[in-house]
């Protein structure tokens, strides 16, 4: 029987099939852990006297509660609060006690959990990957079945390496066409979410297919899969191909030698059969796509950067417009910007920073705007500095920070002030996500950089050419 990629990965990981009375038992290949959603799970384990069953399949990092301000070696990190510090310390204690690999302050691989998994080569095609974090779908870019779980389930995976799951439905989003200049994976996914809605993927695992997807590099694919949850989907994935294998080869956790060849042979079979059935199918063509920005307080409110804000269709739309202090019919371009955030597991990898730097290069951020550039990992930070991107950002007047989630979730002290309009490369524009009363506009790194240097929402293509020294 023909099967989709998702079904193949699912079937391969079923320890016990589901029955009417009980969900399937699904084996988990890789469990990613961070400080915010794990302490209660470890406590539950300790209370029952249970051990972590497969520390070798568990990987931990600190990212959400960690400050991004630089500090000297030997000093204690400048935590925003004692609670932030306690959370990080708890993960140190829990991972030491259970012998789990932790990428803490001293690790050269520390960073946002969804950035470092792929960077280490721990994320591999065909795996099942979970994390107490809804953006776990990022890892689906490699053809893994990766999804977010709650803290109770984190405890289940720690104790048994398995999860109780009912099989989700499947959905295929086929993306044809070629992106125009200045159009990135972020614009594609914002357009997809605008099309299918914030709940368009609820109950489903999305497979992204089509020439536009195949043409994306791994970083772009990660950006795309990352935001699957913003359409309500359990997971999003893309069949692995040569682009995937080239990215993985030689990474610390990736197989090597004969094992590599074996792995590639297996991974090459990981694709949906031509006549595989999906519960839902959507087709999108991106030939005419422009950079996309959001106007509302949900990620499905993306519109083209040269478009006008649409009239409210529901009471929620009207409330969102009111919160955003924007008017229906107004051009979204030109809206005044107070702050810019370039970072998060959606857009904090090297190519994202390159895109932002190419816009900021030779330009100055006006005094009325604060811009924060936060690399996704220590490795990304170093790579960016090797290329001199940090100098471009600093010369423009942006702050260049240490790796972490930062203002994506605003729980480490990095946040906006009430009423501020922030153009952000992160994934959620919910009310207060970047600080109480903050108004968030989601955008690509290039659009965010253009907003920084002009102080308003601006199509990067409309910036006047400057002579690059």
């Amino acid at each position, binding site marked *: 029987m023909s099967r989709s990629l998702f079904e193949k990965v699912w079937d391969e990981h079923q*320890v*016990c099939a589901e029955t009417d*009375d*009980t*969900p399937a*038992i699904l*084996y988990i290949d890789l469990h990613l852990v961070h400080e*915010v*959603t794990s*302490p*209660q799970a470890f*406590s539950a384990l300790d209370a*029952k006297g249970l051990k972590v069953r497969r520390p070798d399949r568990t990987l931990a990092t600190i990212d*959400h*509660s960690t400050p991004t301000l630089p500090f000297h070696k030997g000093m204690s990190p400048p935590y925003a*609060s004692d*609670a*932030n510090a*306690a*959370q990080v310390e*708890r993960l140190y204690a829990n991972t030491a006690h259970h012998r789990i690999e932790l990428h803490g302050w001293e690790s050269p691989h520390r960073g946002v959990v969804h950035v470092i998994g792929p960077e280490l080569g721990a994320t591999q095609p065909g795996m099942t990957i979970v994390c*107490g*974090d*809804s953006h776990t779908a990022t890892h689906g870019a490699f053809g893994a079945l990766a999804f*977010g*779980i*709650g*803290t*109770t*389930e984190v405890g*289940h995976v720690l*104790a*048994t*390496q*398995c999860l*109780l799951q*009912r099989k*989700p439905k499947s959905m295929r989003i086929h993306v044809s066409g070629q992106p125009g200049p200045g159009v990135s994976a972020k614009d594609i996914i914002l357009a997809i979410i605008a099309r299918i809605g*914030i*709940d368009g993927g*609820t*109950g489903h695992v999305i497979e992204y297919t089509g020439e536009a997807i195949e043409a994306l590099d791994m970083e772009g694919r990660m950006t795309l899969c990352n935001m699957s*949850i913003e359409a*309500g989907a*359990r997971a999003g994935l893309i069949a692995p191909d040569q682009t995937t294998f080239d990215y993985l080869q030689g990474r610390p956790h990736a197989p090597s030698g004969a094992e590599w060849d074996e792995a590639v042979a297996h991974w090459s079979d990981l694709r949906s059969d031509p006549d595989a059935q999906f519960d839902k199918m959507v087709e999108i063509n991106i030939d005419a796509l422009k950079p996309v920005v959001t106007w509302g307080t*949900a990620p499905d409110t993306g519109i083209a950067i040269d478009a006008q804000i649409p009239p409210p269709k*529901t*009471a*929620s739309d009207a*409330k969102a417009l009111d919160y955003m202090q924007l008017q229906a019919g107004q051009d979204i371009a030109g809206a005044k910007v107070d702050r810019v955030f370039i970072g998060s597991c959606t857009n904090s990898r090297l190519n994202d920073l390159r895109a932002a730097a190419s816009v900021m290069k030779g330009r100055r951020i006006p005094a009325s705007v604060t811009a924060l550039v936060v690399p996704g990992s220590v490795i990304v930070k170093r790579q960016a500095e090797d290329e001199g991107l940090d100098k471009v950002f600093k010369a423009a007047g942006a702050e260049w920070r240490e790796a972490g989630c930062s203002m994506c979730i*605003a*729980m480490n002290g990095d946040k906006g002030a*009430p009423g501020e309009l922030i153009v952000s490369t992160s994934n*959620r524009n*919910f*009310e*207060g*996500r970047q600080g*109480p*009363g903050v108004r968030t506009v989601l955008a690509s790194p290039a659009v965010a950089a253009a907003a920084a240097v002009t102080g308003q929402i601006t199509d990067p293509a409309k910036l006047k050419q400057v002579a690059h020294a």
Partner: protein
Amino acid sequence: MPETYPFSSRSFVLHQENIDTDQIIPARFLTTTSQAGLGRYAFHDWRFDGNGMPRNDNPLSGCDPHTTSILVTGRNFGCGSSREHAPWALLDFGFRAVISNEIADIFHSNAAKNGLLPIIAPQSAHAWLMEHPGAGIHIDLESQTVEIDGFDSFHFDIEPFAKHCLIENTDPLGFLISKMDEIKRYEEARA
């Protein structure tokens, strides 16, 4: 975990769609390492302003979970972040069930595990409930029925294993652990 079924209460209606978990409990309150006492942060920024003072436009004003412990909301409740702190906060605040016509996946699963019943109502019942705040509601988990004073009753779906765990008050982890031989066999076969 609240364990007695059936139970009756009045509804409290929030007239909003897509209430995300950042609204249910803002991220800055996730710095805790425990799950107790989160009720004071439930819908915090809807209830309190930047200075911690009660807001005039608080959509939860008048909500007393002792008498209105069934939350009725617009479509797609609990979307966004996977934080289990959201059902923990709602339970600690005093809610025992959420009724909507659509509930986001991860929240749905987290809520059921903690005994905050996630109930998807048919359109007609949902529409009626949205228009009748304070309606008397009786929830029977065993028969999976919701009876509404002055309106029709309806049947709701719940994942059978989640239902079993709630009624028997058993921990699903125990079931997983009871399958350890199968898990080990699976690992050996793949090694």
